[in-house]
């Protein structure tokens, strides 16, 4: 199985199995999972709408994906699990520049195609709203270079089918001083907030909808500070170029927590991540041991407790 590979001892194996079994028991029974070519039962009188992952065969609605059947009013669709990212307008994503083309950057965002970030849908460094000149175009590389990690928002699909991004906000832009993690996209749920400032650690956590997760040193977003002296900024970066050891440790700790949860296949919720980090600190687990067998099992057990308490609270 994909994910982490390590030997579990006998007790650990039993504990893990029982934890997973409990998770299975806890999971709501109402969700109907389907595999490719399974018939999705629908009552025809309703006049249903077939959504993603469905097709019609001999009057039956048939799944074309493995996943979970979701019904929203008349719409029936299959929410796929392990698949590439399906962009929706407004999604916050993390991506990596792979090419600089005329007036645009191409980003790899775990979608079936590369995403396009137009120079025009990007705030200029000087913060002035104006037409982009040829000079700007030549200076594109000073903004984002190849392999830079960027945070942006899905703007929509062009008529030619390509995916457009925009980064017209100070919170978007280049991400530095941290690590980017790749997790399956289905583990990141669409929420109100995808930017999380974990104050206690001084760390920013960006859960990109496309399954790319950013963990890095906290950067103050200066909405008002539109005009920044070029020189001043340079100094600043130089000063900040040394991230404190402590912060670096926290970055690693959080990154490992994300890795661990992804390996377990648990949804990446900021609370869970923070819980995991805290638990590791509390029980004095070294950063490297967070990816070890014991903590793996403990995390699974903690998740069981969390879900059980959630259930109780609900009922």
């Amino acid at each position, binding site marked *: 199985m994909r994910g982490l590979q390590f030997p579990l001892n006998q007790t650990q194996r039993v504990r893990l199995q029982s934890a997973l079994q409990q998770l299975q028991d806890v*999971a709501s029974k109402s*969700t109907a999972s389907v595999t490719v070519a399974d018939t999705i039962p629908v009552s025809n009188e309703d006049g249903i709408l077939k959504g993603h992952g469905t097709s019609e065969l001999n009057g039956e609605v048939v799944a074309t994906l*493995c996943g979970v059947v979701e019904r929203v009013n008349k719409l029936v669709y299959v929410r796929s699990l392990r*698949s*590439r990212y399906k962009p929706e307008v407004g999604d916050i994503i993390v991506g990596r520049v792979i090419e600089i083309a005329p007036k645009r950057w191409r980003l790899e965002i775990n979608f*079936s*195609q590369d995403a396009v970030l137009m120079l025009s849908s990007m705030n200029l460094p000087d913060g002035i709203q104006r037409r982009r000149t040829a000079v700007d175009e030549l200076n594109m590389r000073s903004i984002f270079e190849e392999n830079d990690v960027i945070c942006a928002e899905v703007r929509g699909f062009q008529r030619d089918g390509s995916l457009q991004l925009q980064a017209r906000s100070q919170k978007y832009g280049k991400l530095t001083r941290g690590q980017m993690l790749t997790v399956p996209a289905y583990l990141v749920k669409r929420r109100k907030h995808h930017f999380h400032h974990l104050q206690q650690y001084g760390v920013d956590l960006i859960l990109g909808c496309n399954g790319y997760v950013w963990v890095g040193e906290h950067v103050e977003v200066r909405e008002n500070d539109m005009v920044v002296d070029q020189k001043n900024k340079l100094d600043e970066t130089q000063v900040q170029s040394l991230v404190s050891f402590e912060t670096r440790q926290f970055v690693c700790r959080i990154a490992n927590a994300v890795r661990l949860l992804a390996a377990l296949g648990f*949804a990446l919720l900021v609370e869970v991540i923070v819980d995991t980090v805290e638990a590791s600190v509390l029980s004095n687990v070294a950063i490297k041991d967070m990816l070890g067998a014991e903590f793996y099992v403990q995390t699974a057990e903690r998740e069981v407790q969390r879900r059980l308490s959630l259930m109780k609270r609900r009922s």
Partner: protein
Amino acid sequence: MEHVDPLTGFRQDGRRVNEMRQIRGEIGVVAKADGSAQFEMGNTKVIAAVYGPREVQNKNQQINNQALVRCEYSMANFSTGDRKRKPKGDRRSTEISLVIRQTMEACILTHLMPRSQIDIYVQVLQADGGTRSACINAATLALADAGIPMRDLVTSCSAGYLCSTPLLDLNYSEDSAGGPDVTVGILAKTDKVTLLQMDAKLPMDIFENVMQLAIEGCKAIANYIREVLGENTKELEYRRGS
């Protein structure tokens, strides 16, 4: 050589004529890939990895209204008894690559992923006859794992005709006996044939029997694959939590 013992009705490996070898499928064996699977039919072991849909690498191959499907088949050097270095892209592997690509293309809903590319890599880890079928089954599992929309599950199985009896799922020693060998791939739900290969002559009525046997094998494999996928989907879902 007698491939079916006329006295006991068993084949050399203890199977009856209409029995398949033990099959086993496992999903997610390659961490980096979007979808991956290993499929075993007896001693034949095949691994498949799917990448994509992703940006088309070679822009002039891009198709504007559908996805580009590519397939690469290879045999590990250690997959057969004699360990000799085989040149990459020999006629046989080119042919099998093509066969797998065409078979899989028939079931992938390529029009849903325009301007993208899907790469299927299959490698034979251990060869003991029926590699073609095992590759197709592994590729089906890997594609389903990668969440690529498909019309139906394609499964494949071979059947041969030796000692005047149709035999299901030939192993290497039966395959190399030189009799006709029919490889069939079907869309499991719709019962449509997407692959049919035979490089020998058989009378029509016998051929139909052999093919029917192979189709039954395909259906058995389809049931198994559906089971594997269903379990996998359920597990992913409950682990993720609502």
